[in-house]
């Protein structure tokens, strides 16, 4: 009994040492990927943390474009000319379509910043993603995958997250047509298309998205937002017409209270 308790103490010490030196949370975020939507950024303490991994799930296979666009637009909001790495498998063009630069330019992004990497299979996708997150020069790394991604288990996810932390890049995992699985991501989002604000003559308006925060390592989950993309300001402004959805404005104290709870649950 005594022996086992001393073993336990040793293990505890080891865990403490690991979390102090190499744990995912051990370093403060290098900055924030802000959306420009006031309540969204406030609730997350500034936006999506840089140097972390964030997962974007499409709510439905048909919402793939919305999920991809939200991730890409957040990444394009980073100032400067640093390249944006977008990794996908070679068959993604047939399935979800090719990334179309004129459309990105019309959304206000700079397509010259895009660096597209097409890999023959998911295994190579993961290998290249590991190299890409460790490269410090990029503004963001977007990894697009379709369907289940059994290779991306907890170990692989943790390796990616540690790489992103060490290099200070932000990793956006785009999981299309997939159900959430346990992961080490800082935040996990479900993105769906939202009906746009109507223009004259019943024309579709600016892109609108419904975001749900499925998981957040540093706070409560379950928050929802509706974001409208304003390409002139290059930001996700407050949505027009309707007020913020309930849950979007959560008092700070309540947030703290749930934080410890959800951290324990995670």
């Amino acid at each position, binding site marked *: 009994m005594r022996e086992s308790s001393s073993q336990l103490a040793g293990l505890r010490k080891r865990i403490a040492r690991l979390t102090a030196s190499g744990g995912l949370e051990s370093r403060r975020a290098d900055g924030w990927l802000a959306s420009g939507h006031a309540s969204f950024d406030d609730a997350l303490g500034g936006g999506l943390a840089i140097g972390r991994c964030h997962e974007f799930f499409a709510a439905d296979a048909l919402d793939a474009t919305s999920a991809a666009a939200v991730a890409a637009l957040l990444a394009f909001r980073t100032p400067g000319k640093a390249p944006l790495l977008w990794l996908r498998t070679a068959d993604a063009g047939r399935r979800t379509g090719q990334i179309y630069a004129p459309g990105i330019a019309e959304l206000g992004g700079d397509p010259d910043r895009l660096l597209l990497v097409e890999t023959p299979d998911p295994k190579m996708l993961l290998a290249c993603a590991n190299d890409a997150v460790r490269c410090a020069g990029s503004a963001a790394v977007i990894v697009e995958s379709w369907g289940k991604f059994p290779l991306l288990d907890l170990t692989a996810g943790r390796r990616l997250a540690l790489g992103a932390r060490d290099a200070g890049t932000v990793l956006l995992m785009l999981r299309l047509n997939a159900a959430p699985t346990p992961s080490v991501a800082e935040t996990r989002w479900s993105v769906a298309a939202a009906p746009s604000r109507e223009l004259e003559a019943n024309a*579709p308006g600016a892109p609108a998205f419904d975001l749900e925060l499925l998981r957040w390592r540093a706070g409560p989950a379950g928050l929802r937002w509706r974001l409208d993309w304003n390409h002139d300001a290059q930001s996700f402004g407050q949505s027009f017409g309707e007020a913020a959805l309930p849950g979007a404005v959560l008092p700070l104290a309540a947030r703290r209270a749930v934080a410890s709870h959800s951290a324990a649950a995670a």
Partner: protein
Amino acid sequence: MRLARVDARAQALGLSVGMPLADARARVPELAIVPHAPAADEHWLDRLAQGCARYTPLVALDAPDGLILDIAGAAHLFGGEAELVADLEMRLARLGMTLRHALGPTADAARALARYQALPAPDEAAAIRRLPVAALELEAEATTALLRAGLKTIGDLAARPMANIAARFGAGAATALRRILGDAPSPLDPRIAPPPVVTERRFAEPIASSTHASKILAELADEAIEDLAGHGKGGRHFRATFFRSDGLARSIEIETGHSTRDARLVMRLFAERMDSLRDPLDPGFGFDMIRLAVPRLERLAATQLQLEGGAVREAGTDELVDRLAIRLGRGRVRRLRPADTHIPEQAQLALPAIDAPLLLPWPTPEPGEPPTRPFYLFDPPQPIDVLAEVPDGPPHRFRWRRMLHAIRRYEGPERIAAEWWRRKDNAGLTRDYYRVEDDRGRRYWLFRHGLYEEKADPRWYIHGLFA
């Protein structure tokens, strides 16, 4: 079917090129035949030429069965012309090849001597004069005319005034004659232009281990980088050639997006390339020479470090691009560039990131307007079933990938005509594009391929997905 090539034994038995196969079989029943494969011959000749690069960088192909080596200034490295030829003969013999060679003052003279010399001569000039006029390789008519005029050898022809030859047998005859005699330059068209920076190492004893070979390559890379630094240049293309002792050679090449003088990076890229080779580097009986060439140089000033420490951040992605391009293939790591056309699927070019030039600026978005071009584009467009008003009405409902979508909002049509000025037959259908949103807020880009006056029953397609 006729004989395309015969070997020495067949020649001795009286077979010749151009003889019908049936005749040849009748004469020599045990004849062994192989189908003629000109492409394979060409490939083999090219490989031999690659192997001959060990003697001189200037190797030219003389199809279908010849190689011209410019050994000026290189022969002494092998102990003289005769020793060089002996070495070459020995290596070719190991590959089962027979060599008929000649040395000459110019490429054309050497070539003519190798192909047409019948009898030995006291010196080169005399040997050239004794060559038959067929060595000029003129048209059959001109050669016959020369023979009819009693001019049997190059020497006979050279004794005549050049102007008369040109007047009677054509300017081609005069030029060919001057080239063989060495009066006119006979330029060599080398298989590969000699690279500006080359380092190489020869081994007395062939090395059979690949790890040892890559160690040597690393040393060569250091030397090449030093050489580059002296020129104030960086390399963008590196080629390592491994010469096997049996005479064949294998080249491995890497490219970088920016000129570099980083030996560690170069070696890392080589390692990446060798790992991804489909057929790994085979030392055979060992490599007896390794050469590292830098065929493409670019200016590269000394690197500047930032004041607060650390190099410029951008460099990180350049290295990543090089590494991924070598692992996946250069066409798999791309940048998008605009193209000047209004056909949507041609409006962007996906070019290899290693050398994608910045061509045109991207269109700037219209302020206050939603995007008119999709985020994802289908190329080719995917056919859909649409319920729409005829002839020019907007779509109401469409079925795509077995799902029905009810359209709530739409904008259009945006009419995009075919580029009639590019096509001779003036063909191509006009497309009417609609930007539509379904009842769940998903936005699509649909088009009808053809107007009703152009086509009886135009089809509908989905071309893209909006954000």
